[in-house]
């Protein structure tokens, strides 16, 4: 059983890698980028949401928000530990950036990242109060759900395992947001919520990345990606539009 094959061919045929010792350098870099994007987005998302907890209209809402902050931080930790196995200094990493930092509400940054961390662009926009935060959490929560379904099949097994554990937790966050919106529609009316949907919709949509990503084929050959950005975005739009319409809102 000494037959060997090139690791690139193995990956292209659907092979799975299991520890940092035998990942090729470029594969290592792409998986690290993906993990950093997830960790930074979770840490930035949790930090932004932490500031909102006390604005929750009742104790149930505050519990839900606190739970979301706790679990997003926990999910960041799961993936950061895998980065640690590749050599990242995890203690320093968790503190290397002020995760609460945000740009202006109208900053025009498209899908570009800031210079200092890898959070998705959408996490650079500030939340404006409780209802706005809940709407953002619903839209982004659904987007994360679509992304995690894709990344749960990634060829780096420890990361695929982590994402499979994280997916149902993140799905619950989007459900909590939908329940929150249901109550807000009654207490505040649909108009302010619709304004938030209109604000967040294009920004969350942009987080799926460019439709014509030249990188995609490379990542696909490495088993890091399977489904094109445009297809993932479409799935999110279709699923989320239905949920919004059930809540008496419409997509942005």
């Amino acid at each position, binding site marked *: 059983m000494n037959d060997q094959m090139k690791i690139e061919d193995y990956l292209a045929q659907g092979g799975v890698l299991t520890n940092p010792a035998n990942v090729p350098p470029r594969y290592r870099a792409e998986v690290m980028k993906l993990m950093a994007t997830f960790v930074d987005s979770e840490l930035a998302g949790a930090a932004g949401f932490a500031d909102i907890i006390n604005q929750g209209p009742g104790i149930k809402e505050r519990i839900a928000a606190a739970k979301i902050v706790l679990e997003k931080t926990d999910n960041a930790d799961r993936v950061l530990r895998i980065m640690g196995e590749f050599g990242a200094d995890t203690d320093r990493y968790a503190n*290397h950036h002020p995760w609460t930092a945000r740009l202006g509400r109208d900053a025009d940054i498209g899908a570009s990242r800031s210079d200092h961390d890898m959070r998705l662009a959408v996490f650079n926009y500030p939340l404006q109060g409780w209802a706005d935060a809940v709407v953002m959490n619903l839209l982004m929560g659904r987007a994360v759900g679509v992304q995690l379904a894709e990344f749960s099949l990634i060829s780096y097994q420890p990361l695929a395992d982590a994402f499979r554990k994280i997916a149902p937790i993140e799905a619950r966050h989007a459900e909590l947001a939908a329940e929150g919106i249901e109550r807000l529609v009654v207490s505040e009316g649909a108009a302010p919520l619709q304004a938030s949907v209109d604000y967040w919709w294009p920004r969350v949509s942009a987080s799926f990345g460019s439709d014509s990503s030249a990188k995609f084929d490379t990542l696909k050959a490495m088993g890091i990606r399977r489904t094109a950005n445009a297809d993932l975005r479409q799935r999110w739009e279709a699923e989320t539009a239905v949920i919004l319409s059930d809540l008496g809102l419409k997509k942005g």
Partner: protein
Amino acid sequence: MARFHDLTVTDIKKTIRDAVVVTLRPENGAAADFDFTQGQYLTFRHDFDGEELRRSYSICAGKDDGVLQIGIKRVEGGAFSTWANEDLKIGDRLQAMPPMGGFFTELNSDNANHYLGFAGGSGITPVLSIIKTTLAREPKSSFTLVYANKGVNTIMFREEIEDLKNLYLGRFNVIHVLESDAQEIDLFTGLVTEEKCAQLFEHWIDIDSVDTAFICGPEPMMLGIASALRKAGLDDSQIKFELFASAQPGRLARKVVAKDAAKSANMTSAAITLDGATQTFDMPKDVTILDAALENAMDAPYACKAGVCSTCRCRVLEGEVEMVANHALEDYEVEKGYVLSCQSFPLTDRVIVDFDQ
């Protein structure tokens, strides 16, 4: 970051002609750090003529064996495995990081599961650990092992496996598939391919009853088995892989250091390779290698830009750079010429840097 600990070799014995089982005792109160989970591996480091090599070997002991044991099969041209097979002796000190790896599932004494393991050659080591631990800790579960080898005399742990069959009569089933030695049943001769698995699933293995499958072996074997398992209805969360050491390089060539003193004050000619293509351009010496690559429209990898995460790691093949911060690379990597490109400024008038190594 994981740290290396000292371990003393308390026993070493051959299982087959070119494989040893090494028993280790953690020193300096590190025993708790080596409380492993079945199926995990240890990463060792050892100095060969001034060059540090690191190799990972799976633990073959079960959780209830009360010892820390690894199996090392000699790989042709492999410095570490040859040394372990020929020169290592009782009383020697080794250095290893605490156990790592996720090649296992949670055990629960109430489980009544059917596990299916595939091992190719020395890929048996972690699978053996899983088998021993699972059968001991889940009295209602059963395990089927498909074990592929060249011939009868290359079967690692042959006797231990026979003993386990007797100990767990009715719960542990083994199918030996031999590449070159003929067996009574034709199906058990040859390589374990996708087709062979499909045939095994017809009459020999009740695939519908399988809860989790473990595969450890060379790449083509893992692909074939995984594909057969998926076609038989298992999803990816039910298939656990461990790719063993075949892809680890034997020895790394020493880097060539060309130490030309800086001549022109503040410009460097940089040749940077990424994804197989090399770009050559002039860059200022007060710009990092990473930023220079990005400014020249190269899609160089990075994440934290703070010297913490190591996403931007690259290798300096010629010339010198100064790395102003490093919280991620270890000494042995730096000695081999690896740098964090986000923290590295060129010192010499010419640098050659490779992101593909």
